């Protein structure tokens, strides 16, 4: 009921107040202006999006974009400086912490989809990944059909796992599907021979292979199965804040400033191990940079 009453009260207040009151700040922008601080939620091991480096600093591609957004917010609010507080989140805590106002932006690798938009809002997509599999070269898996009747793994609670389950039934592949707790463990299952292939967002697979003990023994499937747009998360029903954030990201894309940031994290060696992921910008993401979108519908990225 509160969500119904609040806009009504706000509308009444606006109607009674002076016309100048229309300029007054609401929601997250007001909170940032009043406190002079913004809290960014970050992940701990989501390389290269948001993670702790070897000096225990939070770094990453999404963090760089978020700091640009903070600059834009500072200009919008005409503040001398905004303190940035960092708050680590996990996949289980990010929604409650966003809803109760602990974090204002979640800077990581969260997939933007329509289901999740019922709970949070997403700004313009900052990365487009695809669902692929990683397997050992020695197991000779060239296509999905080669995995017929084999054991495969994905991380529990991911859209990749959902797709895999559906496709298994649709194509009658008879694969045994295992759900691992996290990416590292799923990868370990393939490494130790418990599963033949691990289905996940390809950027995470590239990163896992690059950090593996013997990167040469791995191969990543050439076929991309589904498209996953990543977005920076913010609170729902805060259009003024979303507009500032969206504009900041759009500006980053339009001005071409995104290119050095992208190169820094995907085409150059990154901490902590100095490994180069060497993943050029995908055609799907180039399309987003040309025409910024915050759509949670995968079809918009094909």
């Amino acid at each position, binding site marked *: 009921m509160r969500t119904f009453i609040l806009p009504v009260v706000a509308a009444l207040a606006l109607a009674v107040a002076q016309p100048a009151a229309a300029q007054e700040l609401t929601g997250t922008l007001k909170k940032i202006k009043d406190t002079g601080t913004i809290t960014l939620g970050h992940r701990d091991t989501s390389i290269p999006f948001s993670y702790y480096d070897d000096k225990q600093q939070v770094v990453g591609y999404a963090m760089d974009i978020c700091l640009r957004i903070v600059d834009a917010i500072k200009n919008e609010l005409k503040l001398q400086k905004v303190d940035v507080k960092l708050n680590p989140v996990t996949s289980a805590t990010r*929604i409650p912490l966003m809803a109760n106002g602990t974090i204002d932006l979640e800077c990581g690798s969260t997939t933007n989809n329509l*289901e999740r938009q019922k709970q949070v809002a997403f700004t313009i997509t900052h990365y487009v990944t695809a669902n692929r599999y990683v397997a050992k070269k020695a197991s000779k898996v060239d296509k999905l059909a080669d995995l017929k009747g084999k054991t495969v793994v994905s991380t*529990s609670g991911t859209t990749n796992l*959902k797709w895999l389950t*559906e496709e298994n039934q649709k194509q009658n592949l008879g694969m045994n599907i*295992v759900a691992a707790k996290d990416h590292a463990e799923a990868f*370990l299952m393939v490494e*130790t021979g*418990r599963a033949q292939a691990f289905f996940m967002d390809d950027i995470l697979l590239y990163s896992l292979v690059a950090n593996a003990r013997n990167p040469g023994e791995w191969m990543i499937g050439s076929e991309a199965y589904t498209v996953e747009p990543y977005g920076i998360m913010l609170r729902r029903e805060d259009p003024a804040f979303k507009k500032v954030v969206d504009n900041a990201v759009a500006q980053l894309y339009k001005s071409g400033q995104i290119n050095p940031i992208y190169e820094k994290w995907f085409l150059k060696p990154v901490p902590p191990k100095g490994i180069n992921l060497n993943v050029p910008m995908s055609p799907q993401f180039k399309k987003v940079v040309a025409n910024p979108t915050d759509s949670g519908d995968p079809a918009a990225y094909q």
Partner: protein
Amino acid sequence: MKYNWNWGIFWQPAADGSGTWLHYLLVGVVWTLATALAAWVIALAVGSVIGVMRTTPNRWAVRFGNGYVELFRNVPLLVQMFLWFFVLPEVVPQALGDWIKQMPPPWSAYFPAVLCLGFYTAARVAEQVRAGIQSLPRGQMMAATAVGFTLAQAYRHVVLPQAYRIILPPLTSEFLNIIKNSSVALTIGLLELTARARSMQEFTFQVFEAFTAATILYLLLNIVIVFGMRWVEKRLAVPGLIAVGGAPQAGH
């Protein structure tokens, strides 16, 4: 708080296409129970043997029992789960290791989880069995051997029937613990209740609804166990055995 409550989510189809989200969680309850009950059987059997060993006059049996308890009690359950699942198949002969690893899911996660929980809880049960036996007056054992019982007979007919009755309340706590500890099996991919609640919140982002449901289901499960064990306690009570000298019965 800007949260979009949606209790109707439980009647919406689950992501794996097996039914509603409620059904998805209830299947998790079945796996939680199947894991905990099988592990409890191991825990009681192994725990009793180890506990008795620690009270026998044989010094080596006592040392072995003590070693077992300290090893399994002092290593975090999470680490033990990892060792059973990932390390065990690598240290056994390769053919056996491959056979373990090729086991079809969910059994490949279920069996390590049951063994891990069973042997871990056995260490705690052993500690209680030992305490139960040692809480009896020394004269009990002496009297039994004096009338010609062998050591095994003295345990079987005199010491253990009393010791088990004394430790029933703490055993109830261990039973409740094993239900709750079974959630650690989610780390090796067993889709029990907690794992399913987590997976539900990942798909739907309805995190509070998912974990509220899991909380209520655990609570109901454990209340049933508490009442079940109380019934067992009453059923087995021998008047005057525990409340010697009118001492109040220990709660738990």
